């Protein structure tokens, strides 16, 4: 916040003390200002700092501009005289605003809401979609992988294929592979899990960011014969060794191997997101380096200057074709995208819809302000008329009116930027954590500049209409009638129609998201999530496969008997937490055609009691049992989706399947399907069940990390404590991490939908209120203007009810027109947010109907109140006044 204030003060200084001759003055003032704000913040907190900022602005204006100057005497001081006029206009505008505190407050608040929302959302859009990535020449960086799935996603590839690409392709300056993952860091206090990047080649070389201390690792460090090395993030090195530079030359223990710390990255460096705290070369053993069946690497490359994505893709595809011929692999073609694209693809639509919404709110705010100013201008018609009549220059009057709206919008803009800053803090706290540039989101110079430019455009925009209209008036008419002539009523009506139309679009968008979210809440995830505590547990490599199985059986057994716990189970990936790992799915007796790859199917490795613990229902056959592993053929279970996909209208029970690459690289010899269970929405509540095969963990003894699930009625914290205690007794070096309740897991899976629903609903609500105020304001004004007419009508015997209906009809005509335009536009625009919706069509009749009803009711009310006032006119008083 101090930095924001300092930036704002600096901008103010540039405005008030421009020119190169004042550079040193400005710098010294900013330095002093920063110290003073820090003082104020220490003694009075944030309000103190803001109050000091306000005092500085006041004094700056007093000292540099508002003290009057002597009249200019020489032509050289002409510009000074322009300035003097400007100063005069500003002072006049401030005086006017002070005289009408109600109007000023409403106007500033309206603007602040509009500008604030835009500033906050734009900061996010800028950081996520626009700001250059913090890597050298980031436009040439691409992500490379397989084009395996039907959507646009880039799939991981195998080490063998990756090294083929790297050694043969000429399109890249370097190419590196990477995989993110957690490792257990031991040897200091408690063992803990830390996230980082393991890289084939050197991802740091490709990104082109030098180390802040020591060195980065290079492709030559990536050899199995070399000693393990690691590069740490600034924050992580500071946490471990006190100072980042102290880390170089030390060593840390990751997954039971000592790694020499060779370097520390700058504090600003992040890849692929802020969670990663270390980067290390993979140093694959020779057999892993040649593996063609383990898919976990994504490539990141720097295109040589002049090489296009297309050329690079074609080159890699021809390498793939050669590889397929030489080693009879079935690997798919290559897919490539810019690094930034891969970071933001999931959030782009969401952000753009929000930006559109918040811009619409600003438009409504402008329309409202223009209306307010129009109404006020009419009130000032006599003042203007007198000035014109005694020879005031039109230009001068227009300039003064524009200055007034500029001052107003500047005040609203300052309030709006402060509000935007606050809103941004809320946003950051609630954004999904897979937004990789989360830490980069802030109000910086660019965001501030855009906000100020918006303020200026807005100020001129809503100020221009009334200013020009008034200045165009003929003094004679104005002086005679004391009010403006025709034409203005139509402008106001048009503004109201526009407001209502925009509000309709926003509300329909918000309504669709609310409906989606409500439907999501009612979706059956396929499990019973309440009362389940989960955490992850992983054993190190020194546990050999049979020990792993025994250890986890022990965990299930001992934790299941903890007081207050009614059962424990393990699974490699939690339900609803993503696709998890997959394998090639082969059906015995149904061979894959030559040259084709078998389908990939995700699998879950579980303890036999998993289904009963999480409440997945049995549909056919039986669940897994403890005795299954004793049989020679392994028992597996599939879900309904998989059964319907491969055995439509047949009984899958008893069929045999093989997971993995036949013949030499299968996960286990062969499995018999013994049961079909209910579907689980593994990819999140808004995605269809992917089809899943469940395998007992005894069949896959190499598996060394699981999520443990405990069913309990007690407080999760208490159960977590006793579980942790129990694990410590079994092996004190094992960290228990990612402790969550299953309800949290479920709620996190809908967090992005919830966030955009909440924001869009807030913007929609705001739009509704503003539009209602707009309708009300305009109709009240019309009533006031037509008071005389009303009085005469009543004097001639018009019924109050008739008059009410007349005014109501007048107001509702605009509302209906706005509704019609809004609904037509919404029907077209909501299609853009199709991907954000769940269970509703973009033209959901229920949502459209509800919004039409709501807006009709609200604008009806906004019209009725002034219409009723029309009948309260006392005819005698009106006629006497004439």
């Amino acid at each position, binding site marked *: 916040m101090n930095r924001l204030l300092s930036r704002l003060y600096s901008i103010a200084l540039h405005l008030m003390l421009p020119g190169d001759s004042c550079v040193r003055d400005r710098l*010294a003032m900013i330095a002093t200002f920063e110290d*003073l704000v820090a003082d104020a913040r220490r003694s009075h907190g944030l309000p103190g700092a803001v109050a000091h900022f306000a005092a*500085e602005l006041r*004094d700056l204006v007093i000292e540099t501009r508002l*003290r009057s100057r002597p009249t200019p005497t020489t032509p050289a001081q002409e510009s000074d005289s322009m300035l003097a006029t400007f100063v005069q206009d500003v002072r006049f505008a401030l005086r006017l605003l002070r005289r009408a505190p109600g109007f000023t407050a409403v106007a500033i608040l309206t603007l602040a809401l509009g500008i604030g929302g835009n500033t906050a959302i734009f900061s996010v859009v800028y950081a996520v979609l626009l700001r250059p990535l913090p890597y050298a020449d980031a436009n040439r960086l691409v992500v490379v992988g397989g084009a395996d799935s039907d959507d646009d996603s880039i799939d991981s590839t195998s080490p063998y294929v990756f090294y083929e690409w790297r050694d043969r392709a000429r399109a890249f300056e370097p190419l590196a592979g990477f995989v993110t993952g957690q490792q257990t860091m031991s040897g200091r206090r408690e063992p803990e899990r830390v996230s980082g990047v393991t890289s084939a080649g050197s991802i740091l070389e490709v990104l082109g960011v030098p180390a802040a201390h020591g060195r980065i690792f290079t492709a030559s460090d990536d050899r199995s014969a070399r000693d393990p090395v690691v590069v740490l993030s600034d924050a992580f090195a500071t946490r471990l060794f006190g100072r980042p530079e102290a880390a170089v030359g030390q060593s840390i223990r990751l997954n039971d191997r000592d790694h020499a710390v060779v370097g520390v990255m700058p504090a600003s460096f992040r890849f692929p997101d802020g969670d990663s705290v270390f980067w290390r070369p993979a140093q694959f053993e020779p057999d892993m380096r040649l593996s063609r069946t383990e898919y976990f690497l994504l490539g990141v490359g720097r295109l040589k200057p002049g090489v296009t994505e297309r050329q690079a893709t074609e080159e890699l595809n021809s390498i793939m074709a050669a590889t397929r011929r030489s080693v009879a692999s079935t690997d798919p073609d290559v897919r490539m995208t810019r690094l930034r694209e891969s970071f933001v693809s999931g959030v782009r639509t969401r952000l753009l819809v929000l930006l559109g919404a918040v811009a619409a709110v600003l438009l409504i705010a402008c329309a409202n302000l223009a209306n307010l100013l129009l109404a006020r201008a009419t009130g000032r018609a006599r003042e203007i008329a007198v000035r014109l009549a005694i020879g005031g220059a039109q230009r001068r009057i227009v300039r003064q009116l524009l200055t007034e709206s500029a001052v107003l919008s500047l005040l609203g803009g300052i309030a709006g930027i402060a509000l935007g800053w606050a809103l941004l803090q809320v946003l950051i706290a609630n954004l999904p954590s897979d937004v990789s540039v989360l830490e980069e989101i802030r109000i910086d110079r660019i965001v501030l500049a855009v906000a100020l430019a918006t303020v200026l455009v807005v100020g001129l925009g809503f100020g221009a209409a009334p200013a020009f209209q008034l200045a165009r008036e003929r003094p004679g008419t104005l002086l005679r009638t004391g009010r403006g002539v025709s034409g203005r009523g139509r402008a106001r009506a048009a503004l109201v129609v526009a407001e209502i139309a925009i509000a309709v679009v926003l509300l329909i968008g918000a309504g669709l998201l609310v409906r989606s979210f409500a439907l999501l809440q009612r979706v059956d995830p396929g499990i019973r999530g309440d009362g389940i505590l989960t955490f992850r547990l992983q054993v190190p490599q020194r546990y050999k496969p049979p020990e792993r199985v025994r250890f986890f059986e022990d965990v299930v057994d001992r934790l299941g008997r903890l007081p207050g716990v009614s059962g424990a189970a393990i699974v490699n990936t939690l339900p609803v937490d993503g696709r998890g790992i997959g394998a090639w799915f082969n059906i015995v007796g149904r061979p894959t055609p030559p040259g084709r790859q078998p389908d990939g199917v995700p699998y879950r490795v579980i303890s036999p009691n998993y289904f009963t613990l999480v409440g997945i229902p049995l549909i056919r056959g039986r669940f897994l049992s403890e005795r299954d592993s004793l049989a020679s053929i392994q028992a597996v279970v599939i879900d309904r989706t998989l059964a319907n996909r491969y055995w439509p209208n047949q009984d899958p029970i008893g069929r045999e399947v093989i997971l993995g690459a036949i013949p030499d690289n299968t996960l286990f010899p062969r499995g018999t399907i013994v049961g079909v269970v209910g579907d689980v929405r593994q990819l999140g509540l808004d995605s269809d069940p992917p089809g899943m095969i469940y395998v007992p963990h005894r069949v896959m003894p190499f598996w060394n990390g699981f999520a443990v699930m405990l069913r309990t009625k007690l407080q999760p914290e208490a159960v977590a404590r006793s579980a942790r205690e129990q694990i410590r007794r079994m092996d004190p070096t094992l960290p228990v991490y990612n402790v969550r309740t299953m309800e949290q897991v479920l709620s996190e899976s809908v967090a992005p939908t919830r966030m955009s629903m909440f924001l869009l609903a807030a913007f929609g609500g705001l739009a509704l209120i503003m539009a209602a105020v707009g309708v009300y304001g305009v109709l009240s004004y019309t009533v006031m203007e037509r008071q005389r007419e009303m009085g005469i009508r009543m004097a001639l015997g018009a019924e109050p009810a008739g008059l009410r209906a007349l005014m109501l009809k007048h107001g509702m005509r605009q509302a209906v027109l706005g509704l019609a335009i809004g609904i037509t536009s919404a029907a077209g625009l909501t299609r853009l947010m199709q991907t954000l919706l769940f269970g509703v069509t973009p033209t959901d009749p229920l949502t459209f109907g509800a919004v039409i009803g709501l807006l009709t009711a609200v604008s009806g009310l906004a019209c009725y109140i002034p219409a009723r006032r029309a009948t309260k006119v006392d005819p005698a008083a009106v006629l006497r006044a004439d």
Partner: protein
Amino acid sequence: MGSDPIFSEYVSATQARFAPSNYAVTRYSDPRDHLPLTAPVFQILLSLIDRDLHGYAIIADIRERTGDEVSLTASTLYAALRRLLDAGLLEEVDAPDGDTDPRRRYYRLRKLGREVARLEAARLDRLTAMARDKHLLPRLLPSPARKS
């Protein structure tokens, strides 16, 4: 406002900045022309009597001596400093070696400034003496210095 000498001097100094010819010479060779001083200006001169200070240090010193009664903003301070520099009461000096913030600027009282501060103090002293004569304030105990 026109009667405020410091202020009218500020106007001419500002004009000088805009004017093509540089006539921002110290027109006030007589220190008495600067009197009376505004409270902030007097306090700034007092702060600089015995050492060179940078902007924030001046504000902090004034706050401390006056118990927060006089609290300047950076905007006011620098406007005053500019006026005092233009009028030749202060000069800018190099930062001492220990200062790490290159943006800071240090100021020193010139002979004229010291004389103006002394004259202002004497003027204030005469004013309080009048107040004492009218028993608005208690009489000071006679001290050896006063006797002479």
